[in-house]
């Protein structure tokens, strides 16, 4: 762990000299990121510790249904990136956008709309970020058999996340993400290979074939839809990945990012689900499914277990520092600047940078409480963030959409979805995001129809089309 930390810290340090002035430089590497690095940072940011711990545990209990859930998310992402990545990229260039909610501010002519989207993201993402720390705390505690208690696992992860992001912003995050993504994929391949060839004397596939309960659809349709629907829109509603649509150097790099992520995601997902299903055969009857991965690691040679543990830490850190970096940029650009529009950029950047250690500390403190509510809030995260979808879709495809429609849809959808999750309400058996998106969509359309659109809506769309022309369209 010390060696891994030192290598990544050295990489971060190395990028310090490349960082120029300004928000675009610090948070977007001045929009000069190449295809491979952008693909790896997108992958490492997307795939968190949830995959090798949470998803393995979920596969342990639910089998192939989890493959469907996670691959449906990936399919949704490929479609959404193909349709929206050029638009976000073009809008970012045309209007010098730094954050995802800033696009809503500019499109709808309403700083309040951007601020509302930012607040929604803050509420939903801080618990999700804390869960990365909690995952590492539990993993280190179990693997060391209590020699390193929960506190130290969370502390080391938090410090790593801070160090890798602080010195050079996205330049250091993207470069360390690229290394960490390679480690994530390599470690999961090694582990899956070891499990495949050593845990199954009769052969892995014939053994798994004898478990029809793991290979059939265990989830009722409302469960599948309730879990999958928010994740299918992840690429559009989670700001830490949307912000990466601004950073590609050019159209070719953007394409490489999408394709690279797609291949990475397919391989990584299949490996994680295989590990979970294998654990259900080899270690049956485990009460807490999240212990499936620690059990596997306890049964493989120590060097391999260590490499995998490092890869899980890499996944947690890469997601955590990306979220913290994005949230800090949003707080400054979309919330503070909404109230102080004349703030100069250097002051804004100093404010955002000052938030990075504070946000890291907030996530660390949150994680120590091990709130049961955190699990509810994490599940709620993607569901709550989904409520931005109507406003985002309308921004690009409905000229008549208005700021009032966007703002009210985000607020109404976010509040109702959050309340339904917290209260455990599922009317007609349908999960909160289903009702939330129906409400958010209805509010968006109806309020837009009775209010006046921004006079600059046409200019925004024309500017986006102009930037896209010749690169993504003829």
């Amino acid at each position, binding site marked *: 762990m010390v060696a891994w930390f030192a290598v990544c810290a050295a990489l971060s340090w190395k990028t310090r000299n490349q960082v120029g002035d300004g928000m675009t430089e610090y948070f977007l590497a001045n929009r000069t*990121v190449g295809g491979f690095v952008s693909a790896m940072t997108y992958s490492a940011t997307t795939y968190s510790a949830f995959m090798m711990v949470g998803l393995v545990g979920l596969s342990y209990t639910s089998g192939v249904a989890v493959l469907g859930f996670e691959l449906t998310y990936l399919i949704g992402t*490929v479609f959404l990136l193909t349709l929206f990545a050029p638009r976000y990229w073009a809008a970012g260039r045309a209007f010098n956008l730094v954050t995802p909610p800033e696009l809503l501010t500019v499109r709808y002519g309403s700083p309040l709309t951007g601020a509302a989207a930012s607040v929604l993201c803050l509420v939903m993402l801080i618990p999700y970020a804390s869960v990365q720390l909690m995952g590492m705390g539990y993993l280190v505690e179990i693997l060391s058999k209590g020699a390193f208690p929960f506190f130290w696992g969370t502390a080391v992860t938090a410090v790593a996340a801070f160090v890798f992001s602080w010195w050079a912003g996205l330049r250091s995050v993207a470069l360390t993400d690229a290394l960490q993504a390679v480690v994530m994929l390599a470690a999961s391949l090694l582990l899956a290979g070891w499990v495949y060839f050593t845990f199954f004397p009769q052969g892995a596939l014939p053994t798994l074939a004898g478990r029809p309960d793991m290979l059939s659809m265990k989830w009722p349709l409302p469960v599948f839809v309730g879990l999958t629907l928010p994740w299918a829109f992840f690429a559009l509603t989670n700001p830490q990945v949307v912000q990466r649509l601004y950073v590609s150097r050019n159209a070719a790099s953007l394409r490489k990012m999408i394709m690279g992520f797609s291949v990475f995601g397919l391989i990584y997902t299949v490996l994680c689900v295989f590990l979970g299903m294998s654990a259900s055969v080899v270690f049956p009857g485990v009460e807490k499914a999240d212990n499936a991965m620690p059990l596997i690691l306890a049964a493989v040679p120590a060097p391999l277990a260590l490499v995998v543990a490092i890869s899980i830490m890499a996944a947690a850190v890469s997601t955590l520092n990306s979220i913290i970096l994005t949230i800090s940029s949003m707080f400054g650009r979309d919330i503070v600047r909404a109230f102080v529009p004349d703030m100069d950029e250097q002051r804004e950047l100093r404010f955002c940078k000052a938030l990075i250690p504070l946000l890291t500390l907030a996530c660390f403190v949150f994680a120590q409480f091990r709130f049961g509510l955190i699990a509810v809030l994490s599940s709620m995260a993607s569901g709550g963030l989904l409520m931005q979808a109507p406003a985002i879709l309308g921004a690009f495809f409905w000229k008549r959409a208005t700021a009032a429609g966007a703002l009210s849809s985000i607020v109404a959808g976010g509040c109702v979805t959050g309340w339904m999750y917290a209260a455990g309400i599922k009317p007609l058996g349908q999960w909160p995001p289903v009702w939330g998106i129906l409400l958010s969509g209805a509010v968006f359309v109806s309020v837009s129809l009775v209010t006046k659109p921004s006079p600059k809506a046409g200019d925004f769309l024309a500017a986006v089309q102009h930037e896209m022309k010749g690169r993504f369209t003829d």
Partner: protein
Amino acid sequence: MSRRERFLLAAIIATAVVDIAVPYGLLKESGRYPFALALFWITLTAAVTTMGFFYTVDWKDKPGKESETL
């Protein structure tokens, strides 16, 4: 929305329908083909990725771009 994007939208809707119809209809009882559902989702993902590859094949740079720095 361009003609190509309308095709993409149709592909999205068709994929969503298939993604529900197959696991909850056609392959609800996999029985004889134990890995059918797993193969279905992997194949569907590979197909969508391939579609994405060809859809984006003519994304190109405008002349005179800066050199890559990261």
